[in-house]
């Protein structure tokens, strides 16, 4: 056998250019801009709050990154998974509070309470996601219009069922005693639950990255998303794998709902729809299918919201749309999307 292939041409595209460098420097530098108007300790407080909010938004968006970004399924019922997670977490905390573990519990009881609430909401998300994919989504892969219509219907049904169980009113979520109050680090006030939220957000991000980038399962998922026929012809049951990915996406949304409920100390049946908008913005900012992009996008939205809310409160709600518009103007495929 000859080795004539060495003469074949190869074009390796450089992933790094002066334009990219300028974009990245600008992207990092802009976050120091508020220091012109805000004193450093307040800036640090806002930054920690922004990162924590970003982590919570990432938890809400991470599932959508898998379902919408990676699998290209426009699942508007994602918000319902989020709301269900919040209500399940709320119920678990109430049950454990009756045992004295939440409002008056020790640190370990509080920690177990939150972890248990997260675990149960994760399991409920798994069950809801599994049946949703098997019954509804499987029939509409590749057809966005049908996906929008049918998942909008599913969203309505799931929220109405939620109202049957928990009622239509707002509910106050108990914050475990160990996560109430703040730490004071060199005059920077850091809310305890925000630290926990940052920890959970980073843990989920690292876990998702490891699974998608370092495991055979991750390779199968990424390959299956790009070209399911090739992966099927290699002997993999891609339908089962897609069911698994959708289920994990739904479970992450439910987990995000529980975290969001504790963070906001309040839940209501329509909370899923409101957060779906945030999650969609983050997935679009980050670039479809990029977990890292969603992670960065969520932090950007969290930081921008906090800085702008401090400086120009009336603009806070619109700042996410503004960020999305600017990023899409510079990078139409999003922060980490493939152009």
């Amino acid at each position, binding site marked *: 056998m000859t080795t004539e*292939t060495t003469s074949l041409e190869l074009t*390796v595209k450089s992933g790094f250019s002066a334009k990219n460098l300028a974009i990245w420097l600008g992207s990092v530098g802009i976050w120091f801009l508020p220091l012109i108007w805000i004193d450093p300790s307040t800036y640090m407080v806002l930054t920690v709050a922004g990162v924590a909010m970003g982590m919570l938004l990432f938890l809400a968006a991470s599932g959508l990154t898998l379902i919408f970004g990676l699998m290209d399924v426009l699942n508007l019922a994602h918000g319902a998974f989020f709301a269900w997670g919040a209500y399940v977490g709320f119920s678990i905390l109430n049950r454990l509070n009756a045992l004295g573990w939440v409002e008056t519990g020790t640190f370990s009881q509080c920690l177990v309470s939150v972890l248990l609430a997260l675990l149960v909401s994760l399991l409920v998300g798994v069950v809801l996601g599994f049946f949703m994919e098997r019954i509804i989504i499987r029939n509409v892969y590749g057809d966005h219009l049908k996906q929008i219509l049918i998942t909008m219907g599913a969203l309505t049904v799931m929220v109405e069922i939620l109202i049957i169980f928990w009622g239509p009113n707002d509910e106050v979520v108990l914050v475990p005693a160990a996560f109430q109050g703040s730490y004071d680090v060199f005059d920077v006030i850091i809310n305890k639950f925000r630290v926990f939220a940052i920890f959970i957000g980073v843990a989920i991000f690292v876990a998702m990255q490891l699974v998608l980038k370092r495991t055979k399962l991750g390779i199968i998922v990424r390959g299956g998303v*790009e070209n399911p026929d090739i*992966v*099927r012809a*290699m002997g*993999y049951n891609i339908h089962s794998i897609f069911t698994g990915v959708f289920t994990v996406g739904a479970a992450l949304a439910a987990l995000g709902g529980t975290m969001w409920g504790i963070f906001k100390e309040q839940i209501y049946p329509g909370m899923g729809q409101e957060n779906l908008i945030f999650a969609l913005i983050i997935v679009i900012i980050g670039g479809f299918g990029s977990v890292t992009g969603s992670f960065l996008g969520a932090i950007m939205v969290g930081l921008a919201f906090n800085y702008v809310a401090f400086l120009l409160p009336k603009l806070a709600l619109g700042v996410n749309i503004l960020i999305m518009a600017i990023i899409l103007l510079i990078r139409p495929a999003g922060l980490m999307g493939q152009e």
Partner: protein
Amino acid sequence: MAEPILALEDVHTYIGQHHILQGVTLAVKPGRATVLLGRNGAGKSTTLRTVMGLTPATSGQIWFEGDHIEQHKVYKIARKGVGYVPEDQAVLYNLSVEENFRLAMFSETEETWQRMETIFELFPDLKKFWRSKAGVLSGGQKQMLAIALAFLNIHRILLIDEPSKGLAPIIVDHLAESLNHIKDETTVILVEQNFHLACQVGVDYFILDDGHVVHQGLVENLVDNEELKQKYLGIG
């Protein structure tokens, strides 16, 4: 005469409303390279996709090593030992060369890693670009990667769809050597428009026209049959 490893009997396949395969009947002998020839739109690629289950047959029967497979799911057909190299995008561009190989390794055994060494000898470029995304490889290298992925596992039969499409002549020669190496190990069905390559690799042939098998025989006899080549292949 050995039993055929793969047999199709009166297979009909539709794509949408188009009736592509209109009663294909053929039998592939084990341990040999069979080429499917014919003009564009004759149904050659659809025959491979139908065997693989990617475009399922609407009627007719397909036997693989004595089992009916026409109702089987794609991954089950693959697990029976049927390998497939599609015509377009036979590798995954967003995965690295290494990840393409890891995906193709259904089980990562000592034997498969030993075969990797052989593959690197056959296709040294693949080792050079091991960590690069497959999407940045040249057309020839992508095709070499596709063939190497098929070579990685020992299949009972390998279906290869137009591997020479769009490749420069020097690369087609290299491809022919690789395909000859593969056919020494396994039964091959090759769909090929490049008659020269088909003759280099194939032993048996079937000519398809309008979704039917219209002629079959030994490639060595077809080479000199100008009338047949002119009538069904448009060459001569």
